């Protein structure tokens, strides 16, 4: 068990190394230099040279790369040129917002997907099952930004049920209950959008898992002992079929990170995805490199988490 985890960790290192190299070289090749916003035609050219020298932009790329990696290990990702702030602080603040959004999304996702998957599997081929399969199919086909915009238009602007942008209204003081409540109010609509779009995998997996379980020997044994079908479902089948769902958690996290770019841009939510898009637009490449590395690390961690949960739940698939 521990061997598996350690091995997986070791595999992550070269992957992160290659990713960091790629992203570093890409960022260096971005058009425009990071001072673009600061420099006006009146700026002294000597000042620009001085700034470039001070930022170490004249060194060979591998020196810059080594310095960047060295600093990154100490939690120092440099300074954001547009925000004039420490990148680590900036991302930390945004990461917290993304974390709350993701947490609610995952909760809603499981809350929607598990009952639907169970119902579809239990009442296979019924009208209910067909509706659920249809639902999971439609949500699978809809692109994130289309559903996001339609929801924002309908529930945000037309019906005015939810706020249309931001993470909290200004009139609330941090720390109070109404501040907290207002924050939740802001993440409800984006979370619902994400949750609805992410349900397909879990519903289909759970459904087919339950349908398969119905034909298993242990179910027949339980039935022949005279256990009512209702109990067979709740005590035997669901317990077996629900466990692997836990392993979806890791992949859900990976998916959430990718989706956050769209969801946060649409709902104007100040999280990491929104920060990424605005940093790309302002060529703020210390922020871009840090964000891509962080997302890459989290994605790897997500798939690692899935594998670990899976190997706890199902000992047959442990890597030898």
């Amino acid at each position, binding site marked *: 068990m521990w061997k598996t985890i350690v091995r997986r960790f070791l595999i992550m290192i070269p*992957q992160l190394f*290659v*990713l960091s190299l*790629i*992203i570093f070289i*890409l*960022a260096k*090749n*971005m*058009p425009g230099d990071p001072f673009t916003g600061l420099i006006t035609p009146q700026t002294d050219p000597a000042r620009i040279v001085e700034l470039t020298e001070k930022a170490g932009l004249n060194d060979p790329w591998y020196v810059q790369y080594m310095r960047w990696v060295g600093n990154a290990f100490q939690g120092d990702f440099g300074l954001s040129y547009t925000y004039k702030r420490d990148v680590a602080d900036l991302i930390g603040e945004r990461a917290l917002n993304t974390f709350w959004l993701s947490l609610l999304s995952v909760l809603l996702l499981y809350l929607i997907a598990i009952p639907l998957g169970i119902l579809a599997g239990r009442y296979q081929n019924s009208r209910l099952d067909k509706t659920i399969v249809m639902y999971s*199919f*439609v949500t*699978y*086909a*809809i*692109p*994130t*930004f*289309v559903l996001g*915009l*339609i929801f*924002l*238009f309908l529930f945000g*602007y037309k019906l005015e049920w939810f706020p*249309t*942008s931001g993470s909290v209204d200004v009139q609330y003081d941090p720390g109070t209950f109404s501040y907290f409540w207002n924050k939740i109010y802001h993440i409800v609509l984006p979370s619902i959008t994400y949750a609805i779009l992410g349900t397909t995998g879990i519903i289909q997996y759970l459904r087919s898992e339950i349908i398969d379980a119905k034909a298993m020997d242990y179910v027949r044994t339980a039935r022949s002992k005279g256990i009512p079908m209702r109990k067979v479902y709740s005590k035997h089948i669901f317990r077996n079929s629900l466990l692997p769902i836990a392993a979806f958690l890791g992949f859900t996290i990976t998916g959430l*990170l*990718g989706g956050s*770019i*769209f969801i946060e*841009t649409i709902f104007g939510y100040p999280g990491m995805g929104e920060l*990424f*898009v605005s940093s*790309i*637009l302002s*060529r703020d490449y210390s922020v*871009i490199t840090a*964000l*891509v590395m962080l*997302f*890459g690390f989290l*994605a*790897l961690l997500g*798939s690692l988490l899935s594998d670990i949960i899976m190997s706890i739940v199902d000992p047959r698939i442990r890597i030898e």
Partner: protein
Amino acid sequence: MARKNKNTGNNNYVNSPPTGLQVIFREFMKDKLAMFSLLLLVIVIVGIFVWTWLGIDQQQLLRVSLRDKFAEPGEKFWLGADQGGKDIVGQMIVGARNSMLIAIAITLITGVFGVAVGLICGYFGGWIDNLFMRIIDFFITIPQLMLIIVFITVVPKYTVGAFILIMSLFLWTGTARLVRSKALSESRRDYVLASKTLGTNDFIIIIREILPNLSSIIIVEMTLNFAGNVGIETGLSYLGFGLPQSTPSLGTLVASANNPLVLQQYWWSWLPAALFILFMMLGINYVGQALRRAADSRQRLG
């Protein structure tokens, strides 16, 4: 009488096993929704291409006319006009054509490359398989969307061709993995072993013997990829990292909704394009699912 006809029809099938096309046809006859989607898609796609080829004057379409800024849907413009006073319907048709062409190009490039890599890895195994599997694992774990966006901003002379290549660079891995796993199991079959014993060239075995057996799953995979590619292209164009602004795409049309005022008041400038994307994705996916069922005898309805 009708029943009798049906029976004789079935007898024919018993005499000779149904060919691929017959199976697909029966599957679509059983699934009305897929049939409807297929017909609609064919009509829409043919319509779009014929229309852009015959009728629409591109110059006229891109001309800015401030007097018609956000004109409401009416007689002059069926679906109104956008910020520059440009006709929404015309832009949607040209945009849909661009989006489709790009998605088709990406699907073909990733399809050919993915199938080639998958077949070679699955058939030969060994170090080449190991190498490609490591690469594919890497591609699957990295944040693809972010890297695509970074790539797009880095390319110095950004064109539609560059966009297609960047997308293809990242999107071939799924097909390669699927084809590899199928080719792996196929290459252990008796017919392949027999062919090897007879001394057939490896590449002839791959292309003439294994590939035809994988054709059905490849078609299904490419149909679903096509839907996915339409989604990714329009999504990136929506964010502003897709097609150049001067090229109308369904995504750039929807992107006008990034302005809250447009989103709220001038809904006709983005909602039709968004719904069009939605229905197109649904349609292609339905067709893809029907093909998938036709390809797998256990799932067939008909």
